[in-house]
């Protein structure tokens, strides 16, 4: 089951210390990967504050069987944000016209999948399911307010995986080992 962090922090009996403790139980499936510490730290330290500030929306994939037994087991999570995609001044006016019908327009909205992780306890293949859920929520936002570009920053080791999920290489991320990949919905 997917639970929205936004809804959890709005509950009448909200207790931040308890929630932080619960979120801290999440351990990602590949703790040896370079980005795993960031994935776990974000959920533990940043997700609640960024949710409150309206900067991100985090969705928790909660294990149904454990929940039915009155236990919490986080199988994964993803965090989304609405960003601005800027086209630098060197971009040809013809291309901007093709993009926007306006040579002077240099930006458009883009949806960021900023975090996406499954836990060690989640079944193999769950990551793909989580990604599809993330894309379906973005599609819903797109239906309501527009925007068709979805992007993510990935370790180069995962490029092939995201390509198999319909993403395309966009560029190397500035001052980083990460690559940026995009998909049009």
């Amino acid at each position, binding site marked *: 089951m*997917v*639970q*929205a962090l936004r*809804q*959890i922090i709005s*509950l009448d*009996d909200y*207790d931040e*210390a*308890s929630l932080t*403790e*619960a979120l801290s139980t999440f351990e990602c499936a590949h703790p040896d990967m370079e*980005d795993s510490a*960031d994935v776990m*730290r*974000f959920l533990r330290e940043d997700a609640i504050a*960024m949710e409150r500030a309206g900067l*991100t929306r985090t*969705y928790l994939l909660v294990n149904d069987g454990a*929940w039915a037994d*009155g236990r*919490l087991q986080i199988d994964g999570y993803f*965090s989304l944000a609405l*960003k601005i*995609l*800027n*086209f*630098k001044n*060197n*971009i*040809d006016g013809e*291309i*901007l016209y*093709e*993009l926007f019908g306006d040579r002077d327009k240099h930006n458009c909205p883009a949806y*960021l*999948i*900023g*975090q*996406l*992780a499954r836990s060690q306890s989640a079944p193999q293949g769950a990551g793909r399911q989580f990604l599809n*859920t993330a894309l*379906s*929520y973005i*599609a819903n936002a*797109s*239906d309501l307010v527009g925007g*068709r*570009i979805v*992007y*993510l920053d*990935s370790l180069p080791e995962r490029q092939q995986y995201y390509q198999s999920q319909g993403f*395309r290489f966009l*560029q190397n991320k*500035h001052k*980083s080992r*990460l690559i940026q990949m995009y*998909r*049009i*919905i």
Partner: protein
Amino acid sequence: MATISFKEDIEIADNNKAKELAAALKQPRDSSIKSSQPGKLPENAGSIWFRRSDK
């Protein structure tokens, strides 16, 4: 994936990539992605999320 990504916007400086995006945006909506939204929390959500070990 990285927390830093939330703090930055994205910039494109490559004309070829901008052209590629323009072409991709001319394609119709991807029918393999079905629009959906999260459901409501279960009734007992608070009792499970806010169960602290030292309480």
